[in-house]
């Protein structure tokens, strides 16, 4: 289903600027990592920015939405931020600025620039997996990635406290940045990872997070982008889930004028469990696109997706979810649901839940609904004396909470719920 790639796709001003960034990359390293980056640069050179004729980007025409590419954030611009309590990594202006002062036994934090300088072939294969490698914005991140963080958690280690990776951009002129992070969870380990995004300047952020889960590892990932979100943001999540491992990811999306969140998750071991959920809160002229590709490459996998979209103003939402079941992935159990509330006359939603199934002994389903608040329910609440706005708020909150409830970590769940409440208050 990929549109036949025709070379020389560098046409627009933004594409030309991006091609310039690629050409001017400082010291592309030799060795496997450098090789992978050159390959990724080749993918972008061949495809350019995706446009509406590229099936996976049909509803987010990046070529027309991204008119110009802002200059790359300079490494020197990064300000040192004070270290904080807890396990917090700060990526400022695309540079790993703060690592936790001390880390519990079995957990290792390394700035990506250091890891890349010393990493070998295995590291390169982990940092640049062949998952989602056809996607040109993801390739752009791979090619331009210079810093970020590598978090390794040793086999059997259970991290109690959540680890936070906070991405931000310091105040200043519009910039673009391409941070990349790698999480390697050893066999039987468990980890809660919070990924938060903010910015003090106009920024085009193209971030990537790569997660490797060995056998039996349990990782919960919570992605949150709120009020001070990057103006244009492409967030790619690449996951390889081993046998018996569990990967749960939740995304709360609010803010930013353009967000594309894309998850490419491959199940590489039997009996792996994948759960992707999220809530999108869109208003004004925001455009948020959630695109998932779940690749069941081996038997007995389970995947569950639940996404709730609440759209008002003249915002537009996109949900694309593809569940691919490869020929030998028998006994796969997949379920996907996308539900949308449209609250205004100008709001728009496009859904494309896809099933691509090559194995016969599977149970896969998806559901997608679009509608507005149920007038009966609204009426019921109003007869109980609630003002209309409050009744609406209650119903919307209940709608979104269904997905938020899946966040396992209590603190993170509460902070997501609080963010939802705050967002609802801004509507009135």
């Amino acid at each position, binding site marked *: *289903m990929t*549109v*036949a790639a025709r070379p020389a796709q560098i046409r627009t001003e933004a594409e030309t600027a991006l091609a310039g960034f690629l050409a001017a990359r400082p010291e592309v390293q030799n060795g496997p990592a450098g090789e992978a980056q050159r390959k990724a640069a080749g993918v972008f050179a061949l495809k350019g920015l995706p446009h509406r004729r590229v*099936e996976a980007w049909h509803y987010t025409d990046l070529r027309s939405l991204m008119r110009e590419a802002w200059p790359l954030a300079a490494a020197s611009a990064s300000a040192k931020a004070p270290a904080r309590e807890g396990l917090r990594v700060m990526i400022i202006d695309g540079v790993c600025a703060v690592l936790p002062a001390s880390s519990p036994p079995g957990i290792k934090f390394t700035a990506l620039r250091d890891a890349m300088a010393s990493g070998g072939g295995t590291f390169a294969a982990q940092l640049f997996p062949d998952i989602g490698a056809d996607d040109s914005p993801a390739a752009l991140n791979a090619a331009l990635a210079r810093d970020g963080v590598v978090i390794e958690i040793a086999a059997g280690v259970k991290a109690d406290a959540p680890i936070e990776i906070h991405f931000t951009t310091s105040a200043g002129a519009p910039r673009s940045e391409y941070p990349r992070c790698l999480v390697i969870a050893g066999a039987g380990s468990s980890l809660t990872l919070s990924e938060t995004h903010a910015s003090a300047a106009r920024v085009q952020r193209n971030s990537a997070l790569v997660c490797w889960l060995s056998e039996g590892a349990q990782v919960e990932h919570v992605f949150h982008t709120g009020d001070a979100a990057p103006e244009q943001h492409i967030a790619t999540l690449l996951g390889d889930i081993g046998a018996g491992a569990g990967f749960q990811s939740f995304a709360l999306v609010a803010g930013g004028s353009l967000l594309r969140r894309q998850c490419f998750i491959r199940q590489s071991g039997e009996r792996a469990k994948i759960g992707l959920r999220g809530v999108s809160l869109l208003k004004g002229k925001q455009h948020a696109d959630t695109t998932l590709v779940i690749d069941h490459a081996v038997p007995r996998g389970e995947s569950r997706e639940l996404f709730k979209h609440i759209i008002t103003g003249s915002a537009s939402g996109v949900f694309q979810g593809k569940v691919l079941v490869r*020929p030998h992935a*028998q006994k796969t159990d997949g379920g996907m649901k996308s539900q*949308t509330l*449209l*609250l*205004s*006359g*100008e*709001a*728009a*939603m*496009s*859904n*494309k*839940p*896809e*099933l*691509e*199934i*090559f*194995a*016969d*002994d*599977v*149970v*896969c*389903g*998806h*559901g*997608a*609904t*679009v*509608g*507005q608040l149920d007038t009966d329910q609204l009426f019921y609440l109003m007869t109980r004396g609630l003002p209309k706005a409050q009744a609406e708020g209650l119903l919307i909150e209940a709608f979104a909470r269904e997905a938020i409830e899946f966040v396992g970590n209590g603190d993170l769940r509460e902070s997501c719920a609080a963010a939802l409440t705050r967002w609802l208050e801004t509507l009135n």
Partner: protein
Amino acid sequence: MAAVQETVDRVKSVDVDAYKYGFVTDIASDKAPKGLNDDTVRFISAKKNEPLWLTEWRLDAYKRWLTMREPDWAKVHYPKIDYQDLYYYSAPKSTPGPKSLDEVDPELLRVYEKLGIPLREREILLGVEGAGTRVAVDAVFDSVSVATTFKAELAKSGVIFCPISEAVHSHPELVKKYMGSVVPVTDNYFATLNSAVFSDGSFVYIPPGVRCPMELSTYFRINEQNTGQFERTLIIADKGSYVSYLEGCTAPKRDENQLHAAVVELIALDDAEIKYSTVQNWYPGDKDGKGGIYNFVTKRGDCRGARSKISWTQVETGSAITWKYPSCILRGDSSRGEFYSIAISNGRQQVDSGTKMLHLGKNTSSRVISKGIAAGRSDNTYRGQIFAHRKASGARNFTNCDSLLIGDTCGAHTVPYIEARNPSVMFEHEATTSKISEDQLFYCMQRGLSGEEATALIVNGFVRDVLQQLPMEFAVEAQKLIAVSLEGSVG
């Protein structure tokens, strides 16, 4: 259990030979020179003695086609078609517009008899008197319509049912007004090609307030080698009228692939209803995927009037490759679109089919039920779009697409596009994929059914929702087809 017994009997009575319409008839034919250029288009137009405006229309379409690219987004793979290696026009020689059936080549009539489609009204009347139903048939053989039955009787109630080539002359105002108004000349690669070289097809006009007294039907047959069939059907249901239309198609077994690129346009004015049913049984190619028809068809209905309704029902079992999306433009307020489909693929067939429901008017509603069954080494894709325009307040859609996989070498895919631009819409989409449950098979076989019978029974249950929408005459045929298509897929 009577119904079950009936199904089993039916399955048993079906010929074991998978494709029984694969015979070739030797009929002298009159062909256009191979290849496509301005002259071919003019040749076809001249053959039909068409007015100048239509020739121009075709030439414009041809010019446009030259600038277009063949679509490549569907989940189908086939070698590049050499459009210059095809005959674009082929007509049985001896019949330059027969006045009555007596003048039609008897060999031709025998073809249709062999296919189970009697064309002589007398025989039809004799044959089905007991059943009390009659079907008027327009038989299209390669590029021309060879016979249309019950024309006189239909004319009594004001219904026009004739080949489109005839309608161009007898009712130019209707053809001019409606042709290309639903599927514009520039719509897509295959529709544009069709606009340039279409040869024949059916034309139906139902006057206001008339309920068409019988089922109308077109039977398409490709006979000639290396020939593409490009028919064009235009059905107009004027205010408050009703028509039910059936379409069937077969082709001989041949080793090369043949192209069938049709355009069907339906127009329903205020309060009118059109029910369009297709049993598509083109030659699917052999077990190794050799030969078979490329079925690249554009079908679209326009609910132009308020409270109008268009319903598509299709049973797709044939064709090597199917690329077909019967759609409804729900323009009139409170109009309704329906799509019921069973797509069965076996061998190396590839199906990429579905529907588009474009909600433009207020309070429009649509319903999509699609059942895909993949067996052998086939790929079966449902691709459907549900769209609500900003002004389409109160639009409703319910979509249900289920896929059934038989064997582990086939693929079933679902690609729905659900686009809402209005907050008061209510769209619901659900899709499931599963295999025939071991428990159900075991239960049936324990009661004495063979594996194949049990599969046919379960499949029949799976597709029941759609079969019920078919007119009686087709439902039986379709049920048999399902059994035939799945022949050999168990064990």
